[in-house]
């Protein structure tokens, strides 16, 4: 992952179509266009896993069905704990077969329709639920050497709790970290960088103009009419955190994509 940062490779989030899509063909086409564009730009496509608990198709099945090329350095799959064991192994095996090596392991957002992994499914004892830590342990144990595993860091949670969790995530096999979206310099992220100087950290840039959508993540209400310039924020993040990679959440492919190529130079 360090190589991504050294080579200024953006991590570009792509959301697969939702299961309930009424215009699936069009959504698939759009996904393929975005994915191809990210590949051609030399960036890393980061495909979400039922983000916000919305039932969506899996990145691996999108790649297979649409016959998209996999350049191992340029694809990252999110994987959360809301799967059946069978489905989890299917995704992991598909990743191995497709040559996908980067996984971002997160606890994830559930929904009524999404099954949740049970501790017994993945051989966990002494824990009542499966979090990203247990999932990391499982993947490292059962798929040893197959993946480069990353985890999320939330600077808006109580820091002591978050740092304690990060210790466990790293002990479980995480080798890179992706933060929640940052809209300004963040003291907790500064502390993270100090604490783990050898672990690549990727800061998330919120590329939607709808900043209020971040209210829940940051834990305070952002007014709907608040002015927000995602490109200016992206530039600020590069300046503030030159040692970090950048993950672009909700990047606009029509209006923003061409603007980013000259920012990280």
């Amino acid at each position, binding site marked *: 992952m360090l190589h991504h940062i050294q080579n200024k490779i953006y991590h570009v989030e792509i959301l697969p179509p939702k299961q309930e899509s009424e215009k699936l063909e069009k959504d698939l086409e759009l996904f393929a266009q975005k994915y191809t564009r990210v590949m051609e730009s030399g960036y890393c496509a980061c495909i979400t896993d039922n983000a916000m608990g919305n*039932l969506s198709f*899996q990145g691996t099945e999108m790649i297979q*069905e649409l016959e998209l090329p996999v350049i191992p350095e340029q694809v990252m799959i999110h994987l959360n704990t809301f799967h059946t064991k069978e489905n989890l192994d299917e995704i992991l095996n598909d990743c191995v077969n497709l040559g996908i090596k980067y996984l971002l392991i997160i606890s994830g957002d559930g929904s009524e329709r999404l099954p949740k992994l049970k501790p017994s499914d993945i051989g966990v004892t002494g824990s009542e639920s499966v979090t990203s830590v247990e999932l990391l342990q499982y993947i490292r144990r059962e798929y040893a050497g197959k993946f480069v595993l990353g985890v999320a860091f939330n600077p808006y949670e109580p820091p002591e709790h978050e740092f304690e969790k990060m210790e466990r995530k790293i002990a479980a096999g995480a080798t890179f970290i992706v933060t929640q979206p940052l809209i300004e310099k963040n003291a907790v992220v500064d502390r993270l960088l100090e604490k783990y100087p050898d672990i690549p950290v990727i800061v998330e840039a919120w590329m939607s103009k709808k900043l209020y959508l971040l209210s829940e993540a940051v834990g305070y209400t952002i007014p709907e009419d608040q002015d927000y310039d995602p490109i200016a924020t992206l530039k600020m993040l590069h300046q503030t955190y030159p040692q970090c990679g950048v993950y672009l959440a909700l990047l606009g492919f029509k209006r923003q994509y061409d603007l980013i190529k000259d920012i990280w130079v």
Partner: protein
Amino acid sequence: MKIVVCIKQVPATNDAKIDPETKRIIREGLKAIMNPFDTYALEEGVRLREKLGGEVIALTMGPPKAEAVLREALAAGADRGILLSDRAFGGSDTWATSYALAKAIEKIGDVDLVICGKQAIDGDTAQVGPGISAHLNWMQAASVMAVEQVDESCITVKRMHEEGHDICKMQLPAVLTVVKDINTPRIPSLKGRLAAQKAQIPVWKPEDIGADPDKLGLNGSPTRVVKTQPPDPRQTDTIRIEGTAQECARALVRELRLRSLV
């Protein structure tokens, strides 16, 4: 094993409005989904087929747009779907509906097992599954939470009730209605979804299933809905708990206990 899973398209909202004239739900403008209980019925059918071989046929009755719910069933593993759709079916109560479905099951032929969701979330009657069994004169078990064993002639199921559960062994063919505890429905794959979009779905009319027109629609419905109204909106309130983490946790547990939620 030939398995028929009866499914229903229902409005995906708690904000349903009732037509004051017909006393029925106004479905126009509401997003339609597969009745959630039916997703468990479908999953159980697909699992039994995966274990025992055979075929799963999804069956629904409704307007032409109900075809969408059959495509959803195909995406989730059903082998084929059949839509009963005709004006003559309109206005059927649970008895007339179960009659039409039973006639379709007879027409499909050689069916070993019919599986329905416990109830539909729009009508909440839980009568159609048992109604089908009455029309076909087959054994039935309602509120099934597990299929324990199946062979060529018998099925053993665990049936849930207020005081626990029963183990019931029944001769096939039989009708089951299932509860959520029975399984975790799979999420349809993209491949399945794309194949389902292209599938041909036959539409059967009363004459195709040999149904007596007098037993369908309003004429065939012994029940009359004299008044329907949406339930009162749920009362919600917000309690702000303050204090240290420990105090908050203690207060939260106390509040949950007071509400019998833990």
